[in-house]
């Protein structure tokens, strides 16, 4: 082909994986997996940073524990558990299909993971909020 006219190159923006246009259910699982992953990594570092209070001494830690019992922190706890459920249950699904187990029913497993996530999220939210009283 004559090379005097160049085609429009592909623009690969780093966030292109988050382009939701026309995507279907498997893609949502992938996006959910990735968003929960980013959230959990942030939480991990935050958690480790907070634990450094333990090295400071008993008062520092007990002050933090008191703060952690506030409703906003408890809500964050629930979000954390939802993230863990999304990532963990879908992770089990991905491991299974990655080793060739249950590939034809990957969508069924996804819906199962969604249902379990919802059920366990509600149960843990109830447990967390009732525990304080």
């Amino acid at each position, binding site marked *: 082909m004559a090379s005097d006219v160049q085609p*429009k190159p592909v623009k690969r923006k780093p966030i292109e994986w988050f382009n939701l246009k026309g*995507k*279907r259910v*498997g893609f949502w699982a992938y996006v959910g997996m990735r968003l929960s992953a980013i959230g959990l990594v942030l939480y991990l570092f935050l958690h480790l940073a907070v634990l450094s209070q333990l090295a400071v001494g008993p008062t520092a830690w007990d002050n933090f524990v008191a703060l952690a019992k506030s409703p906003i922190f408890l809500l964050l706890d629930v979000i954390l558990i939802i993230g863990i459920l999304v990532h963990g249950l879908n992770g089990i699904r991905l491991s299974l299909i990655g080793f*060739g187990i249950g590939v034809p029913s*990957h969508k069924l497993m996804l819906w199962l993971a969604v249902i379990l996530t919802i059920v366990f999220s509600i149960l843990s939210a109830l447990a967390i909020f009732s525990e304080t009283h």
Partner: protein
Amino acid sequence: MKLNVKIYRYKPGTEPHYDTFPVEVPETANVLDALERAWADHDMSIMFRHACHHASCGSCGLLVNDQEKLPCVTPVTDYGEGATLKIDPMRNMPVITDLAVDASVVYQRMELIGMPIIRNAETIRPDKRTILPEGLETFGRFENCLECGLCLSACPVMATDPQFLGPMTLAAAERLLAEPRGADVDRVYRLVDDEHGVWRCHSSFECTEACPYEVDPGAAIMRLKRKIGMRKLKRFFGGS
């Protein structure tokens, strides 16, 4: 049946825009027929790739309402009377003009794997035997993969990583490992067992959704992962 086709228009050096044309096609028509009507009745400068019109050449892949379709086998009735079909070129490939993309990556990657287009045809007999006519050693047929590139367009990893081999390529590798036809199997393993090979896949199955011809690249990649994983583990634990 009356439809509107809203077509992506692009000439190098100008801003892309959409042109909308009303078309009338019979109920039996496919999206490609609607596109051809817009071309013939309204604007013969619309450039789109097409050849066989029966899902064999794999040249006409594009996006209908943002989803990867082979328009020659996508019935207009999927969209209904009076619908507006938004037609875009495939993603992750350079756009030559309008809907025509530079799909060279498709053939280059297939050539890299080296899967021949001819395979042994499955039997069509109910008892699963194959009875051949005199003079033939086997029934051959073209592979399912049309090399249309729709899976490369749909894959979210292809959208960020140009080095990723892509669903089509990995599915071809899996086919070749299943029926090597004299190919160098170790070379194929070396190619796909790579950070930008099979392990880059994040199992979103968009390729499977996009595939117009039962290749099911998503499932093929999973089989490939299993094959490679098992091979690795075997070697690691002292097998051969």
